[in-house]
């Protein structure tokens, strides 16, 4: 089922994480995960209209097609993407897919935006994978 409706500012989008080094020990996400490639698009999945299980299944499908391991996802609100003059373009397939477009051409400018997105992204671990042990707070 395709969802080509415009993306509302408050909508959540998931960036599925298939490389474990993009997840820091403190469960935050490295900017590396948001560098657009193949340029100029960054692939995300809209949460809208999906149950949590359906959303995870889409991630599992992405990983299974490679094959790769789905470590988790980084959730972003559409508003935080548009804040950096990026656009969100829904695509007909796969289900609920969208591309984040409008990236600057210069590599360091891309990195800077990727850092801003990573700073507000919320990491959610794949619930079907064994959880990593809880981390203690860093000493002052």
């Amino acid at each position: 089922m395709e969802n080509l409706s415009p993306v509302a500012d408050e909508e959540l989008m998931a960036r599925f994480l298939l490389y474990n080094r993009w997840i820091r020990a403190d469960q935050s996400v490295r900017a590396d995960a948001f560098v657009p490639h193949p340029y100029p698009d960054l692939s995300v999945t809209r949460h809208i209209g999906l149950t949590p299980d359906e959303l995870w299944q889409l991630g599992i499908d992405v990983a299974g097609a490679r094959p790769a391991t789905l470590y988790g996802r980084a959730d972003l609100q559409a508003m935080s993407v548009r804040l950096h003059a990026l656009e969100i373009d829904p695509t007909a397939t796969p289900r609920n897919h969208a591309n984040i477009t409008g990236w600057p051409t210069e590599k360091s400018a891309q990195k800077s935006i990727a850092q801003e997105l990573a700073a507000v992204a919320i990491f959610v671990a794949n619930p079907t994978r064994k959880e990593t042990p809880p981390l203690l707070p860093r000493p002052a």
Partner: protein
Amino acid sequence: MKSVTVQLPDDVYSRAERRAAERGATLSGEIVALVQRFSQEDQAGDDMQERDRLAAGSGLEFALQELAQVAQECSSSGWDGREAIAIKPGSVRSASEFLKGLPPDQPVPTIGAEPDGHITLEWHQDARRTLSISIASGPEIHYAALLGDRKAFGQELFLGEVPQLILELIQKIYAQ
């Protein structure tokens, strides 16, 4: 009971956190392993200067080991589960030279990779105190930093000496 003095690098706690997360081990276990490791290195040196050199050198050793792991993991295209470009041996050499060029008293970065085939070195304190540089096989390095409510990004050349601007950004990331 015998008391001993062990020289530990400043980032021993973050190293233990990283190792625990990567290996699925306990944080306390990794701290013990690191203390044991540095205890053994302390015994190898006869004077304080030698111990300092070993402690600082071990930080570099960790980073080089991590670089080797990343290089191996990302040696084929599609390593990110999508369309990532494979990391080239020349990029690994450049990143290795960059790490070896860091002054020994500087914090050691963690190593990662971007889907366009760049190796990344990251100095990270929190979401808004973070520096990342991207290295490929050429002399250009691309950097981006968040420094509280300010940010910096651009391009520098690495010709065997770490650019002063990068060293200053590292210091800003860890400034109190």
